């Protein structure tokens, strides 16, 4: 059972994917990296997919960051705020972050802020190592998200993400936060 360490804001970082499927393991690898970074105030989870019971976990947070591999797109990674979506365009052995947020609202009347960090992967067959290019993207995404999380923890509010995005975008380091769709989706 995950334990929150310190901090006033409730933050869940959830890595999705199968480590035995090469770049599909980007999400769990990210969680391993964050465990080593020992950033206080985070709940860290990794699983193959989001499932219905995660609505309960989502409902207990103020901020959720879901990390998953992308199968297409030109950017190393994209970072996008999730809107709830109640449509049926998903399978239910796993749920999309959009559908899970919608379920969280319907079942628990809670509305955590949910962001998706999609990291571009290239190889998805059996194997335990990330591809070299995915590893590069992983490092860039790690550097980015750790800064974001520190900014949020420091301010105590998820709104710090937008401030952080604005400040990096003004310095020419925009990461897709204002894009309409996430690459590969």
């Amino acid at each position, binding site marked *: 059972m995950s334990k929150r360490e310190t901090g006033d804001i409730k933050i869940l970082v959830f890595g999705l994917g199968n*480590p035995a499927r090469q770049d*599909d393991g980007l999400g769990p690898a990210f969680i391993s990296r964050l465990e080593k970074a020992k950033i206080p105030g985070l709940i860290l989870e990794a699983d*193959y997919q989001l499932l219905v*019971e995660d609505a309960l976990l989502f409902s207990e947070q103020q901020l959720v960051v879901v990390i998953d591999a992308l199968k297409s797109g030109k950017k190393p990674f994209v970072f996008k705020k999730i809107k709830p979506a109640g449509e049926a365009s998903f399978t239910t*052995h796993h749920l999309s972050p959009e559908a899970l947020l919608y*379920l969280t609202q319907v*079942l628990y009347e809670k509305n955590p802020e949910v962001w998706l960090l999609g990291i571009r992967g290239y190889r*998805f067959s059996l194997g335990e190592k990330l591809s070299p290019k995915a590893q590069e993207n992983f490092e860039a995404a790690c550097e980015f998200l750790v800064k974001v999380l520190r900014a949020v923890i420091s301010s105590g509010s998820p709104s710090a993400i937008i401030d952080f995005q604005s400040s990096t975008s003004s310095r020419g380091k925009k990461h897709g936060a204002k894009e309409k769709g*996430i690459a590969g989706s």
Partner: protein
Amino acid sequence: MARKITIEPVTRVEGHGKVTIHLDDEGRVSQARFHVVEFRGFERFVQGRPYWEIPVLVQRLCGICPVSHHLAGAKAMDIIAGVPPGKLTPTAEKIRRLMHYGQMLQSHALHFFHLASPDLLFGFDADPAVRNIIGVAKFHRELAVHGVILRKFGQEIIKATAGKRIHGTGAIPGGVNKSLTPEERDYFLKSPAPYNIDTIIDWAQEAIEVFKKLHQENKDVLDSFAAFPSNHLSLVRKDGALDFYHGVLRAVDAEGRKILNDVDYQDYLKYIGEEVRPWSYMKFPYLKKLGKEKGWYRVGPIARLNTCDYIPSPRAQREFEIYKAYTGGKPNNMTLHSHWARLIELLHAAEIIKDLLNDQDITGSKLVKKGKKQLEGVGLIEAPRGTLFHHYRINKDDQVAMANLIVSTTNNNEAYNQAVRWVADKYISEKPEITEGMLNRVEVAIRAYDPCLSCATHALGQMPLEVDLYDARGQLLDSKRK
């Protein structure tokens, strides 16, 4: 004009399946097949790995039932470690059982509340925008919440026994590496409702009542849809009781006559053959005694309740008696009754979890035994979707030299094809167009067995539903996607 209908992949099942239905020039079904389009390759993947890594490594086969692979792999490695079935310490065996029944609880809850109930509550022809878990949450909120909590409870049992949410290391060759602390045990026994086992048992019972009510209202459909006679295979306890963790292999035919009479699964190759067909990566297992043509069988909840003599927990046994009375004590071959059987198993799992939590052995400290190393072992377990075989040989350097896995979905391979054919004959033959209702019926028939096809790769944007319609010359006539 002859047509070919392709449904790829099947939604609301794990992985990538494809259904092709070939129509002849008169529009009648000439062939209906359920394909698996991805080669697993996992048996080769584990070759060369040290045998003690297997219980952890094989969890990566499947994102839906990793605990089943964990325990089947561990049972095979027990034998290789020289600790055969029945020789584990009481604490080790009971912790493993607790883990497994926790998984059975969460997996069956997911299937009924979130995969099957939309079809049953809203009807096969309901708007697909409603006929899903979102619809259940909006219009049957209490049911959806029960499903969430039942799953959550099962997940917490798995975490407490396996050590982690996924890739747990609880079971190791010859035992387990942790037992429960008294605090962990009391959490499950004494937490305020709904997070205690008594509430979970009550809710499992309520779920059966939901099904019974739906059955009363839709008896014709639930009794006849995709129903066909078959053989049935599962583990049973030596005395014939339902047992998900260990026992002997029993197979019965559609009338209940025994085909395999409680045989030792270490000898499974004497009894089970695997046929390769060129159009599918998934093999077709069969009972050698009956041959390839007649020897195919079903596994899973409906098969388990057809093979066992009784259920060793009081509330589930009462429900079992009602269930069996419906078919006059004969095997139940009604495909959609698998939901009924699954819910009875859900109740049984909850009752057994309570028994185990109240057993002082689960907080014991004798966790592992050692024995004389062997070079070969078979581990068998009843996974939520059915019988799961893990068979390994190791070399003198303790590396895996051979692995053969027959997963539940493979055991049900022919049953999927039979179900698809049934639906195609009834709902697609001689129809002018492919409707959402027709397609969903194909999915409903497959979903009843809750197939789990992939190795859990699922990167974003990978799971649309595609429907392609071809004529006899292979020309695409129509294509639908959702």
